[in-house]
């Protein structure tokens, strides 16, 4: 028989004002198995915990029930205290008499009655609790970073700096990501490439970092400390080890009509190409959709001209299996598709462009070599109108309900840069709100207005139409309460951003959750913002929510710190509340393995005594406690009840049901 101690917390007046804690503590003394019962103002306080510890020792308690706030708040606190007093922490249960009782009921009798029921229920459970021991699992001291943008690069560099090996898996042919496409960065206006490329080079040169470019994560198995990942290295038709990046192939390639994704499709590239000058790895790749040789079997010019003999048309996708202790997701973002916003005429007018396209038009390495020429007729635009919040804060269904966070700043940046470079240009910005929280951010925006004379119009554009070659931007000016029409030469849309869609697949592979906007969920929005709910998986950059470069870099470094903290451990403690199989009853039917999301169940043939001195061999399930997450799906699918869950056993729950129904 258990010796159970019950502690009723007042939580100041939070509980005591509605639940008669004295009456509860007194009544509970009569419960079979209860040898001690007390009430206290704040059980979670130092003194409260001491009371618990003393009682465990004095009364030789084998089980404890605390009637207090939600177990989600202080179960861990109390269990730690119990452990300090020598009681197995899993012999303690919390009855939630605050959130689920005192706070929602007004009548004292009613609330007291309910508190009694809830505590009796917890007692019923504790009677059947068994001491549980946390298991241990080893840690593979290597990290995986998915995504080679600035977030992934920063995380990888920081992890490598601490002495751990780290692999970057990047689906494109080069690392660098979106930041490589940007011209300047706010609020300092330094050149994006100038600050990014050194970091890219650091990655390439680090002996701890392995860059798997043009690769994708195909399969993830295992669990924190022990992930087993299958990576698909897509066929690039160029041997990475041989290619010297000389670009002769690009000069000779006859297929020159491919759209240059790096330049936002604003110009063309050859079928064999290196995405940009500072690409890492500086190795060519062949676009199989465009390559004449791959499509028709005829051509082979690049192979002929390649001095290094790097071209291999026979190349196939390869699979690499690696093991990791931690995974950082840094899959980044893309601008949303704005075809549905026909009021801005993006699809109809070449001179209505997105901000990212403008970045390329302004960039020295871009299609116009940094000279701002409008796409339609390659002339200098004289009047440029920016429209903000295109697709952001939009609940109409075409856009995104959230604020994309970076548009206000980059629009100010663009406006400023244009006025700086081409002072004769007239720049208008339609805005709903200008959001510039951040160090030196508002100053930056004000500089655009005050120093550079950018015309900010409070109001939104209702319509953009082409009239005699002019883009007529019709919008409202709410300050002057008038409708304005601005004949413009170029219209730039501050397009909303969204998570790179491949994140959905990654989230599924990692069994990490994702929100309705496809942003990955963090474990806690405030207190655990860089951890995903799946242990060992961390989030950096835009995949978790809109953010700018400094924030992305901070988050990436935070991720790295978390990863390092994990990888320095030799062993991890595992959750003891996991499934286990009673082999005497197991049928070996495989139903449990069918529903296990973690692949924690395997089968073995074992010999059992069947009476009469005979034995028989049966196939029985076996649970890997380090892989099992303790959801219990298997326990219900098991008809014989051989599968049970420690800490939430069928007997415990049934006896809770019995107690909770009693009144």
């Amino acid at each position, binding site marked *: 028989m258990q010796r159970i101690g019950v502690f009723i917390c007042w939580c100041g007046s939070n509980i005591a004002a509605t639940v008669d804690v004295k009456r509860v503590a007194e009544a509970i003394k009569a419960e079979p198995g209860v040898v001690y019962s007390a009430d206290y103002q704040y059980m979670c306080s130092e003194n409260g915990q001491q009371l618990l510890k003393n009682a465990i020792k004095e009364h030789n308690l084998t089980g404890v029930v605390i009637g207090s706030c939600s177990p989600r708040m202080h179960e861990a606190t109390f269990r730690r205290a119990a452990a300090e007093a020598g009681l197995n922490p899993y012999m303690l249960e919390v009855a939630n008499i605050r959130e689920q009782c005192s706070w929602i009921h007004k009548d004292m009798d009613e609330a007291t009655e309910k508190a009694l029921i809830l505590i009796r229920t917890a007692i019923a459970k504790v009677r059947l609790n068994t001491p549980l021991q946390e298991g241990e699992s080893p840690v593979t001291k290597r990290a995986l970073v998915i995504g080679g943008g600035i977030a992934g690069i920063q995380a990888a560099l920081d992890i490598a700096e601490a002495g751990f090996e780290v692999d970057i898996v990047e689906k494109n042919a080069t690392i660098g990501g979106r930041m490589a496409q940007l011209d300047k960065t706010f609020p300092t206006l330094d050149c994006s490439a100038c600050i990014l490329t050194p970091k890219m080079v650091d990655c390439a040169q680090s002996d701890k970092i392995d860059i798997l470019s043009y690769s994708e994560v195909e399969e993830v198995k295992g669990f924190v400390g022990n992930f087993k990942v299958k990576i698909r290295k897509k066929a690039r038709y160029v041997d990475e080890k041989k290619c010297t990046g000389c670009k002769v192939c690009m000069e000779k390639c006859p297929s020159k009509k491919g759209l240059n994704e790096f330049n936002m499709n604003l110009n063309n590239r050859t079928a064999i190409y290196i995405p940009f000058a500072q690409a890492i790895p500086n190795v060519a790749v062949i676009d199989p959709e465009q390559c004449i040789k791959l499509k028709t079997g005829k051509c082979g010019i690049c192979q002929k001209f390649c001095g290094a003999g790097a071209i291999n048309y026979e190349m196939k996708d390869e699979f690499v299996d690696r093991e990791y202790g931690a995974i950082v997701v840094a899959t980044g973002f893309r601008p949303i598709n704005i075809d549905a916003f026909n*009021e801005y005429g993006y699809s109809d007018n070449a001179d209505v462009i997105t901000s990212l396209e403008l970045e390329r038009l302004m960039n020295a390495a871009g299609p116009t070599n940094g000279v701002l020429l409008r796409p339609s007729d390659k002339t200098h635009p004289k009047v440029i109108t920016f429209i903000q*919040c295109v697709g952001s*804060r*939009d*609940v*109409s269904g075409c*856009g995104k309900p959230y604020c994309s966070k970076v548009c206000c700043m980059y629009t100010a940046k663009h406006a400023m840069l244009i006025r700086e470079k081409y002072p004769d240009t007239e720049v208008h910005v*339609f805005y*709903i*709100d200008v959001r510039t929280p951040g160090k030196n951010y508002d100053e930056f925006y004000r500089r655009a207005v005050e120093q550079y004379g950018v015309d900010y119009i*409070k*109001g*939104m*554009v*209702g*319509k953009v139409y082409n009239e005699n070659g002019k883009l007529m931007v*019709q*919008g*409202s*000016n*709410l300050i002057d*309460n008038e*409708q304005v029409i601005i004949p413009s030469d170029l219209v730039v849309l501050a397009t909303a951003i969204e998570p790179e869609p491949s994140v959905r697949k990654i989230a599924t592979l990692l069994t990490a959750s994702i929100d309705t906007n496809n942003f990955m969920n963090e474990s806690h929005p405030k207190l655990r913002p860089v951890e995903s709910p799946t242990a060992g998986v961390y989030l950096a950059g835009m995949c978790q929510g809109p953010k700018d470069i400094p924030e992305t870099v901070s988050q990436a470094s935070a991720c790295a710190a978390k990863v390092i903290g994990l990888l320095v451990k030799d062993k991890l403690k595992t959750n003891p509340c996991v499934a286990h199989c009673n082999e005497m009853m197991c049928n070996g039917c495989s139903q449990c393995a069918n529903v296990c999301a973690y692949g924690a169940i395997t089968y073995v043939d074992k010999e059992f005594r069947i009476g009469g001195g005979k034995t028989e061999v049966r196939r029985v399930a076996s649970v890997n406690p380090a892989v099992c997450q303790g959801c219990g799906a298997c326990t219900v699918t098991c008809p014989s009840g051989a599968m049970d869950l420690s800490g939430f056993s069928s007997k415990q729950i049934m006896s809770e049901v019995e107690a909770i129904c009693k009144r």
Partner: protein
Amino acid sequence: MDKTEMTEIMKEISGTDVRKCMKCGKCSGRCPAYKDMDIKPHQFVTMLEKGKVEELLNCSAIWNCFSCMACVERCPRGVAPAQVIEAVRTTFTRAQNNNGLAAEDIPPIVDELIPQQLLVSAYRKYNK
């Protein structure tokens, strides 16, 4: 009827949540009748929110609105300024002992594809 009550009625008729407006002005940016509107579409929303029913009932914009629904179409927040305008108009006509067109008087030729709102508001407008 007092002002508050009338405000509530107008809000109810409009079927739109005026609080959803984020004051971007896109409705007014798109309005083809903008010049003839003494109260602009976006103002209808904010004025109704603030309960300025008298000004609304006495404006000419309710008779100049085309009920083209462009503002409804363009609103990023799902607010429907044209429905607010229609609500004001309806309240106005109701106050005149309901001299609008009865349902059975609507000619059968009227195509059912034409939005009801547009039809009804047009009849109301020209029955002033």
